[in-house]
């Protein structure tokens, strides 16, 4: 029998290879710094980070599925729970909490108390519109798209802008079932 999917990410976090947190934080900081120097527009940098995150997410999902052995989630609620408890723990080492469900169960908020990407970071006045962790929203979007869910992920609260926590809003736009790709007459 295949092992049951874990409900928390702790055993997985212990099993995956880990990298030094400071190396990770400083590398990410260097990326953002370089993007700002190259693109200069804060909006452009946000978009670029989202795109990078999307490309990461598209690959990350397979690694997540392979290591965590979760089966398909029945609905978006379960998906959000798995992301918060298992996914974030496995890749970032922190757990998120899921709150603010809307009535239909298609929108929720993922709240991160601490975020390893932003250690040692302060935003200067010139970059106040920058979503520093925008790569995370791209990662979630890319990963969910590969499991047939089209979503929109936006930042609601950001500690670098003075709020008390990081809050991502995840909205499920639609579920895209797989279609038979070959035409019948082919």
């Amino acid at each position, binding site marked *: 029998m*295949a092992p049951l999917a874990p409900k928390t990410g702790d055993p997985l976090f212990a099993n995956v290879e880990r990298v030094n947190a400071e190396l990770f934080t400083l590398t990410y900081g260097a990326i953002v710094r370089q993007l700002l120097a190259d693109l200069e527009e804060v909006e452009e940098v946000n978009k670029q980070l989202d795109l990078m995150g999307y490309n990461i997410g598209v*690959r990350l999902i*397979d*690694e997540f599925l392979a*290591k965590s052995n979760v089966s398909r989630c029945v609905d978006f609620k379960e998906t959000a729970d798995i992301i918060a408890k298992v996914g974030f723990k496995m890749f970032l080492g922190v757990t998120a909490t899921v709150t603010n469900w809307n009535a239909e169960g298609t929108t929720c908020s993922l709240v991160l108390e601490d975020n390893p990407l932003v250690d040692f970071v302060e935003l200067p006045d010139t970059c106040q519109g920058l979503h520093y962790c925008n790569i995370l929203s791209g990662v979630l979007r890319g990963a969910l798209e590969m*499991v047939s869910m089209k979503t929109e992920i936006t930042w609601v609260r950001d500690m670098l802008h003075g709020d008390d926590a990081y809050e991502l809003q995840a909205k499920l736009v639609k579920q895209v079932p797989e*279609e038979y790709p*070959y035409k019948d007459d082919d």
Partner: protein
Amino acid sequence: MSDGRAGSNSGLTKLSLAVPGRNTARPLTRNSSHHPSGWKDPIKKYRNPLLPPSGSRDREEGGERAHGPAMQFFGGSSVAEIAPSPAAPPGTATGLARNNGNMLYIFNRSGVCLLYREWHRPLHTLDAQQDQKLMFGLLFSLRSFTVKMDPTSVDKGNLGVPLLPGQGCSFHSFRTNTYKLSFMECPSGIKIILVTHPKTGDMREPLRYIYNIYVEYVIKNPLYVPGSPIKCELFVTNLDQYVKTLV
């Protein structure tokens, strides 16, 4: 036998003497109707004329049938010559020494065949692309059908409604008298299909392991474009090594 050869081949002669059974095996395996014990093989009458004359007559596991003389001269080395098997040395794995297919397919969710690996395939009927399309179509329909026929599931859509990968029950293998096909589908749409000899056990864990190898060498490879056929050498090497241990 070896004395009849010319003097210039003396090196070869010595070599052929050193491989026991090779000279004795050859005349017998080429002649399909000859059995030393005079035992009539009933299957032979219905032999598929498309198959190349191969040394292995019986398709079942050797130990079960009292077929002593045949087992001696079907040593395995001549069979492996006929089937070009890129990675496997002849006769090491029992599964390869017979007329059993051993192939692997990996598809992504849009039907693109990311990898087709063949270690042993006695019969090719279609060209590669048709074959892959056929395999994908077969599994797509089979999965749809198995989900709809699930007696324990409460909610069943109509047949023909497209399914999400991983939704509903998962079908994992089918077996015929000549091969076993094991299948694994991940929620991200990656499908891994392994065709082996019919006595293979449950392949779910090996298929998961292959999925892990795929993640390690293909997904984490920055030069690989997701959705395109896999050309990563490391992945193929590791895969070959692993499958050799399975068969």
